[in-house]
């Protein structure tokens, strides 16, 4: 795939603080990349560097094959959407959309045409003459997307665009952004801390922590084969259950339980014996009848139940610790119930205890 953006050996320091550390990243043309991480991991900083709003300390940034490391934001061929919408309050929506074009010296007819087209795509035509204050949150964010759209650029940058919206609107606009990408085929980089947004929108997700990328892969790959314990814990809700124990031969042993690791796909050279974490997702644990068909079964006591309608989440006590399982929405369990659960180690995740890397 032809790269649209490539970031080479990028570093950014604020004084002694290294915010981004020797980052390399290639983003294909038309790709939807999500930068995901908890706050302070450097994802927004990276986006600001790509946009040219922060001067980098070291490294290079190429957009569309051009070295733009020192270019002004407006010269980089990007459009950007911000969390707080950042619409100019004193201008109408039309004024907001055309501001950048006026600065670029685009002719009046051309501006008119582009604003009309963008407004049509985003269905904000009736709002063009209004001021941002007279718009709802969703409409404002649509207008802000429009401002990026009229620029006719190849790369869109989104900085947590949905975080200020309520849950319902967030889901609606998420779908719209995905549709927009399917229609326009622009390269999009999208920063979020919301794993649902990341999973649903991304072609690839880059999970960041402490200024570097931990894993860059498709959503499915990240879900199925997280490279380390942090990623495994970060993706999935409720998050993965872990047991501490040791690997011996092809078996995992923890207090009160020994299980064979048949069917588990080892990474690289395979398992060395030694202390390790055994992780299993709540949705990969079966309960009741289905549990008996599983290679490993445990007896557990129900501690807490969270019915969600579509699913029921249950926190169980077994092997001296608490862990979550996802059950059928109609499951009827209560605090104190005894339950047999089972899972297949082939669907588990093993991590080295010290390095926390996948085994």
């Amino acid at each position, binding site marked *: 795939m032809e790269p649209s953006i490539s970031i080479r050996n990028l570093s950014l320091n604020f004084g002694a603080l290294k915010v981004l550390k020797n980052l390399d990243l290639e983003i294909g043309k038309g790709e939807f990349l999500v930068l995901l991480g908890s706050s302070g991991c450097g994802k927004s900083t990276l986006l600001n560097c790509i946009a*040219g709003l922060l001067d980098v300390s070291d490294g290079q940034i190429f957009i569309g094959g051009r070295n733009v490391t020192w270019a002004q*934001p*407006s010269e980089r061929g990007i*459009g950007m959407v911000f*969390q707080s919408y*950042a619409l*100019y309050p004193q201008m109408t929506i039309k004024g907001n959309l055309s*501001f950048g074009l006026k600065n*670029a010296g685009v002719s009046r007819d051309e501006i008119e045409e582009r604003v009309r087209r963008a407004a049509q795509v985003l269905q904000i035509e009736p709002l063009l003459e209004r001021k941002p204050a007279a718009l709802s949150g969703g409409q404002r964010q649509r207008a802000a997307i429009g401002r990026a759209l009229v620029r006719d650029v190849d790369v869109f940058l989104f900085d947590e665009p949905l975080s200020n919206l309520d849950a319902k609107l967030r889901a609606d606009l998420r779908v719209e952004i995905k549709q927009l990408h399917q229609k326009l085929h622009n390269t999009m980089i999208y920063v979020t801390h919301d794993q649902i947004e990341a999973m649903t929108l991304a072609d690839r997700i880059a999970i960041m922590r402490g200024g570097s990328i931990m894993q860059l892969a498709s959503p499915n790959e990240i879900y199925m084969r997280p490279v380390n314990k942090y990623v495994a814990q970060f993706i999935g809700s409720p998050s993965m259950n872990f047991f501490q124990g040791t690997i011996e031969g092809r078996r995992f042993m923890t207090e009160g339980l020994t299980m064979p690791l048949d069917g588990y796909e080892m990474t690289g050279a395979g398992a060395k014996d030694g202390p390790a974490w055994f992780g299993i997702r709540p949705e990969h644990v079966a309960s009741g009848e289905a549990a008996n068909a599983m290679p490993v079964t445990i007896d557990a006591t129900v501690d807490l139940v969270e019915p969600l309608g579509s699913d029921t989440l249950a926190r169980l006590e077994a092997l001296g610790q608490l862990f979550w399982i996802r059950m059928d929405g109609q499951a009827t369990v209560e605090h104190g119930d005894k339950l047999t659960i089972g899972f297949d180690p082939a669907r588990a995740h093993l991590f080295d205890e010290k390095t926390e890397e996948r085994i």
Partner: protein
Amino acid sequence: MVDPTGITLHGEVGAGADGGPRGPRPRRRFSRRNIFIYGTLIVVSVYYLLPLYVMIVTSLKGMPEIRLGNIFAPPMEITFQPWVKAWAQACTGLNCDGLSRGFMNSVIITVPSVIISIVIASVNGYALANWRFKGADVFFTILIFGAFIPYQVMLYPMVIILREMGIYGTLGGLVLVHTVFGMPILTLLFRNYFTSIPEELFKAARVDGAGFWTIYFKIMLPMSLPIFVVAMIIQITGIWNDFLFGVVYTRPDTYPMTVQLNNIVNSVQGVKEYNVNMAATLLTGLVPLVIYFISGKLFVRGIAAGAVKG
């Protein structure tokens, strides 16, 4: 139309004993607390308003009536002669054209000083808040430091500077002095205000290709009316009321109104004309007073806006 649960339906509200709002009644108007609060307020206002009252009353009396000594008594016979005299005839040394000359000088000093200092300080504040240029912190620290140095320390050095520039004793010189000395506090004011404007707005404008001046004029300025009003009020009152710089950096024919007032009030020849003095003082204080009355609301809004996230 009261349903069994006792909830009054729409359209029946306020219809006698079973309608209207319910809940604990509000406090009585003459509660002990209210009496205390309003009592204090009234005492304090009287304390502040009494001198003003005496001044106004005295300025409307003739000298014979003043000599009777009843300073709180309203004038038996109202006369505007003292006001006319204070404005146009009061003598300072050889000049006998009253405050009018000082008024014109003060206007000529205040208007350009206010405009120039606000224009420069707003750009300063904008640059400091949004364009973190190299050395911005050092520059800002020095500027803030300047706000805390007593003016008296710089009086003499400033005299030398003005003399060397050849504008000592001119109105232009005083305008320069006011502009320079207004800079620290105004820059601080503007910087804090611009810092409170969301940074993403500034980023969005940069992505939109707006440069330093475009962002300043098209984005920042239209959002900053309140703070400009605050700056204007601070500067107009400060410069209009200034006495120290006026007396040091000007000559008798360029004296601002405050210095002229001082000379009228403190002249030692002849009788002390209290009524003229009172009228002259009121005339001098009128400009800041009018400014406050006109822009009071905007002033409060601007101060509050700067304070929230400053």
